[in-house]
């Protein structure tokens, strides 16, 4: 008889902890990657050097990596906040789009406003735009128990079509010869630069991540959230209003993803484009999962994820095909970050019991 494996939370992390696991995972990933690169006829050392230099090698590289980490981190946070309550927001990709759409809308009416006011208004609108897209699934889940995975997922397509419609239709730039382009953002709507090419989005993302981590970990609101996430019955018994919680958490999650869209719009893009979300919403699910749904872990994972993406993409200029580069990114990601997960969990098989060491008394 097959014994099914399952992940079991260790009572104590492995000796050496996550740094050690990270190192071992990275080494394994690089070894497997070396085989891949050799089989594709490349020089692994040259490729790895390039990956590192392009992502973490100097301040310019850090700037590019951090710019990438911003949408990944916010999208990851969106998923993690919902995940703290056991909810799956698979709709961050679409919420990023509606966030960017709402921010573009503000930029359209506030073209003459001073920069700071315009940017703040755009970011608030982005929060609202993302939250609005999550509102439907949130209400359906809270009132009718409709599975939020399905509804949030399906709305991604709606949001991207909405952006397409706007760009091809009412928001088409009249100066673009009928090309499907939204107009450029006003000059003052661009986020200021922090250093090199890194924009201030990293501060916004860091701030939101800190606030959310504190809220989930240390406030009564966050405590109720985590109780509801671990056991519905307990939550009900202690008088927590589950529908209300579901509603606020899912809408908040959508809002955070929407903010990612707003920051991406004001930080990176010059105008609303159909591909602005660029897969960040789906990558955010991986970020959150690798951060074990803890908002505090999202920042670290997002920077690593960003570095892997930027480094992985950069080796294409050395002649590595995009598919080999993507496979390599996956190896490094799951080797390095996935090992962190295994350092906190162990694999048990059906029938094994969760043995609690005696000295740990929880």
């Amino acid at each position: 008889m097959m014994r099914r494996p399952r992940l079991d939370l260790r009572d104590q992390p492995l000796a050496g902890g996550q740094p050690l696991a990270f190192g071992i995972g990275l080494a394994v990933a690089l070894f497997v990657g070396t085989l891949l690169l050799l089989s594709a006829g490349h020089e692994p050392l040259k490729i790895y050097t390039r990956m590192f230099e392009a992502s973490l090698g100097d301040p310019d590289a850090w700037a590019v990596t951090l710019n990438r980490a911003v949408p990944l981190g916010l999208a990851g946070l969106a998923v993690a906040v919902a995940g703290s309550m056991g909810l799956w927001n698979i709709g961050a990709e679409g919420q990023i789009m509606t966030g960017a759409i709402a921010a573009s809308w503000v930029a359209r009416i506030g073209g003459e406003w001073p920069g700071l006011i315009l940017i703040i208004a755009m970011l608030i609108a982005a929060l609202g735009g993302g939250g609005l897209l999550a509102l439907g699934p949130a209400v359906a889940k809270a009132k009718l128990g409709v599975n939020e995975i399905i509804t949030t997922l399906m709305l991604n397509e709606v949001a991207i079509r909405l952006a397409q419609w706007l760009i091809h239709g009412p928001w088409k730039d009249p100066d673009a010869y009928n090309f499907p382009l939204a107009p450029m953002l006003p000059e003052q709507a661009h986020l200021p630069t922090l250093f090199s090419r890194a924009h201030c989005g990293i501060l916004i993302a860091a701030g939101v991540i800190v606030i959310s981590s504190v809220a989930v970990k240390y406030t009564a609101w966050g405590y109720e959230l985590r109780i509801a996430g671990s056991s519905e019955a307990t939550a009900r018994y202690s008088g927590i209003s589950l529908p209300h919680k579901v509603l606020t958490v899912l809408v908040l999650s959508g809002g955070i993803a929407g903010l990612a869209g707003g920051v991406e719009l004001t930080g990176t893009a010059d105008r609303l484009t159909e591909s602005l979300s660029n897969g960040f919403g789906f990558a955010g699910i991986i970020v959150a999962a690798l951060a074990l749904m803890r908002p505090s872990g999202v920042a670290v994972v997002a920077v690593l994820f960003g570095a892997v993406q930027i480094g992985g993409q950069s080796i294409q200029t050395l002649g590595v095909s995009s598919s080999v580069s993507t496979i390599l990114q996956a190896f490094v990601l799951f080797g390095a970050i996935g090992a962190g997960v295994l350092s906190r969990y162990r694999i048990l098989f059906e029938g094994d019991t969760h043995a609690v060491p005696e000295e740990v008394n929880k």
Partner: protein
Amino acid sequence: MRSKIAALLAVCVGLGFALVSCGSDDGVDTKAAFVYVGPVGDAGWTWAHDQGRQYAEEETGVETAYVEAVPEGTADFANHVRDFIDQGFNVIIGTSFGYMDDMVALAEEYPDVVFEHVSGYLMNDTNFGNTFGRMYEPRYLSGMVAGSVTKTGLIGYVAAFPIPEVIRGINAFTLGVQATNPNAQVEVIWTSTWFDPAVEGDSAQAVLDKGADVIAMHQDSAAAGEKAEAAGARWVSYNSDMSAFAPNAFLTAPVWTWGPRYVAIIEAAQDGNYSPSSYWGSMADGIVDLAPIASDVDQSVVDMVMEAKAAIIAGDLHPFTGPLNDQDGNQVLGAGEVMDDGAMLGMMFFVEGVIGSTG
């Protein structure tokens, strides 16, 4: 004596430096980098550009490189271009419309690098130009072939996005169809995709089910052709000769030949006399062409198409010549009038005989 030797040495050293610096003056190697929106294996748009890159590398001996599958409107494009420039590449060719904003900004940031943008409309005065081709010419010819083989009189056109480039292609194709089959109609179905085999295949199937027996298309996959093959219908592919994907269905295709244009850009950059332009090359220039016509098409049709091709190249035939009415019967061009480039570049209406809407 000693001073003479010293002088001689000085001259030699001086000469040596002069030679070395001479060498480095023209010694800035030209290296050309290409950024593609799709994978080079798409057999369509990106594949055709990569054929052009390989051709240019062979012809000029210049080192080339590429990155593929780079999405538009994200930071990825600029990241790749900066990587290339760091490695000494000084000609950057971007082959998708959505790279335009980044190319404008990068061209300003790197004035010593030549930027050429395929399918856009912006340029500057020094180091940034754009390239495209009059694909409507071979589209018209492919329409003539399609019109000659349809029996049901309904031709399906699996179209990408309602933008002037695509609409111009549909109209030119339809006018070609009408040249050989005045009563045939072209039904347009929008996919809102450039490369999504599943959607494009399903869309082709939908028009086949309505009775279309020829399918034309404007995406980068061969999915529409595979559906036509399965249904026993015929197919006009696009971008490249895709006959291998649907050997029985394949009729012909309007195709891109980017190589010579890339050679011209790279050689101009090499000689230091690149000057930006809005290049809209024609069949006479060789940047667009018609793929070989399937062997089972009547020789009389082939002859007629070849005659029309020669007339277009000679400048005697223009697909958009009046009398020309739009879909609703309003006159667009009077008899003998030829549409100007501006009107073609911004075309947002369908000609008579097209079923569907531009929105």
